[in-house]
């Protein structure tokens, strides 16, 4: 495979080729090794400035990008919505142009509006990395999920991956669906009918409301959190009912394939979408996902910083 990375930005999974995805995942393998050294830092982005522009709250993704940038020797500035001039009425465009005027090289943006990273990428010379835009995409989460699956299972093609929970409001689900179907996995979606609309079948995956059937043959189960903050009104009666009908209980866990992987992008709600003991068991790779997220984000920042052709 001789694909080279030509992009200045990572805006989503949807427009990436299979070769580009594999190049990102292969590069992440190299960066994971850096985290195991005595000195966990390489000089690749020395002298570069990365701005974490998080207009929507996030701890783990922001921290992961910050540490990834620091391990590549970049300087990092964090800007959150409440601490920025956005609350004083400055537009996103003006905030971004001001960051560019400070010679920021990479802007990592999280925004509640789908398309905000795309908007910035057209406006700025700096690289733009999407850290989540509304319910649209969260590409680095999908990449780290795929990296974890590939590391544990040795492949992605041909695997049955079930995504369970809030699909409708989930950018993680969309990015995962695009990535996994591109790489040849069979994706099944399940959860409350209000949160898993049939229209998702157009993405090339299967929708079922029979949870038992959805998880029975799964090689990987990716549990998604119920995103109360993104729902306009409650889409199901209670978290207790959700846990009973769709949560990964000990009883359901016992009926899984013996080597099924349990994944969750975090933060987990113990006792709701996943039983507390199962979250901590040997087949749960939730914390490895966090470790791998760092490696994947290092790879993304490295590749987007290399060989810029001067396109705006």
């Amino acid at each position, binding site marked *: 495979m001789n694909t080279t990375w030509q992009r200045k930005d990572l805006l989503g999974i949807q427009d990436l080729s299979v070769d580009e995805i594999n190049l990102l995942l292969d590069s992440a393998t190299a960066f994971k090794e850096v985290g195991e050294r005595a000195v966990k830092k390489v000089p690749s982005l020395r002298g570069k400035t990365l701005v974490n522009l998080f207009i929507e709250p996030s701890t783990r993704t922001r921290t992961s990008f910050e540490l990834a940038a620091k391990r590549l020797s970049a300087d990092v500035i964090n800007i959150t919505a409440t601490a920025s001039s956005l609350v004083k009425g400055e537009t996103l465009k003006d905030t971004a142009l001001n960051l560019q005027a400070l010679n920021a090289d990479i802007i990592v943006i999280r925004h509640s509006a789908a398309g905000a990273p795309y908007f910035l990428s057209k406006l700025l010379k700096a690289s733009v990395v999407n850290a989540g835009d509304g319910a649209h995409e969260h590409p680095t989460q999908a990449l780290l999920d795929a990296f974890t699956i590939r590391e544990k299972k040795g492949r992605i093609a041909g695997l049955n991956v079930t995504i369970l929970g809030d699909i409708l409001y989930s950018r993680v689900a969309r990015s995962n669906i695009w990535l996994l179907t591109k790489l040849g996995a069979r994706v099944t979606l399940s959860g409350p009918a209000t949160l898993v609309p049939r229209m998702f079948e157009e993405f090339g995956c299967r929708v079922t409301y029979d949870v038992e059937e959805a998880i029975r043959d799964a090689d990987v189960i990716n549990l998604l959190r119920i995103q109360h903050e993104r729902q306009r009104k409650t889409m199901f009666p209670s978290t207790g009912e959700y846990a009973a009908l769709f949560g990964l209980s000990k009883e359901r866990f016992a009926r899984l394939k013996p080597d099924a992987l349990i994944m969750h992008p975090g933060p987990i709600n113990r006792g709701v979408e996943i039983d507390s003991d199962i979250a901590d068991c040997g087949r749960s790779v939730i914390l490895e996902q966090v470790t791998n997220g760092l490696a994947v984000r290092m790879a993304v920042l490295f590749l987007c910083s290399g*060989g810029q052709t001067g396109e705006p």
Partner: protein
Amino acid sequence: MSATVIMDSTTIDRALTRMAHEIVERNPQEDSLALVGIRTHGAQLAQRLGSKLSAILGRDLPTGELDISMHRDDLALRSTPPRVGPSRIAFDVNDKTIVLVDDVLFTGRTIRAALDEIADFGRPRRIQLAILVDRGHRELPIRPDFIGKNVPTALGERIGVRLAEVDGKDEVVVEK
């Protein structure tokens, strides 16, 4: 473009045999010798030197490989980012005498990056440099300790090293 073969499998093997003896001679009571090759060809050469050294010393030496892409100083100057691979140094480098191995020594920038990278794994006692072909034109104050062949070149010429493990056959050519 014309290519002149300057080393074949016999001369490459003789050079490596001599270098293995020089390494032992230079490090007489050395029980802390280790080899680190720079991928791709340096890593293969380190393997070959390693088997010659274990034949001489009667024991195996720890051998590792480096991918120096992350330590290069020209990421933003290249037209595309390099393909990075993991480095594999599975032994403790602290207080070791490390023989760093590469195929061609040119500007010295690769070696500079490799020295930086080794320091990320710990603090070796000393680092020595073994090179199959020294073609001159150094841009940094770096000098090899063990040389397979000195090849004076013009700047525009290319040295091509092919090794059986990766390229199907052993040879060193000068292309102009």
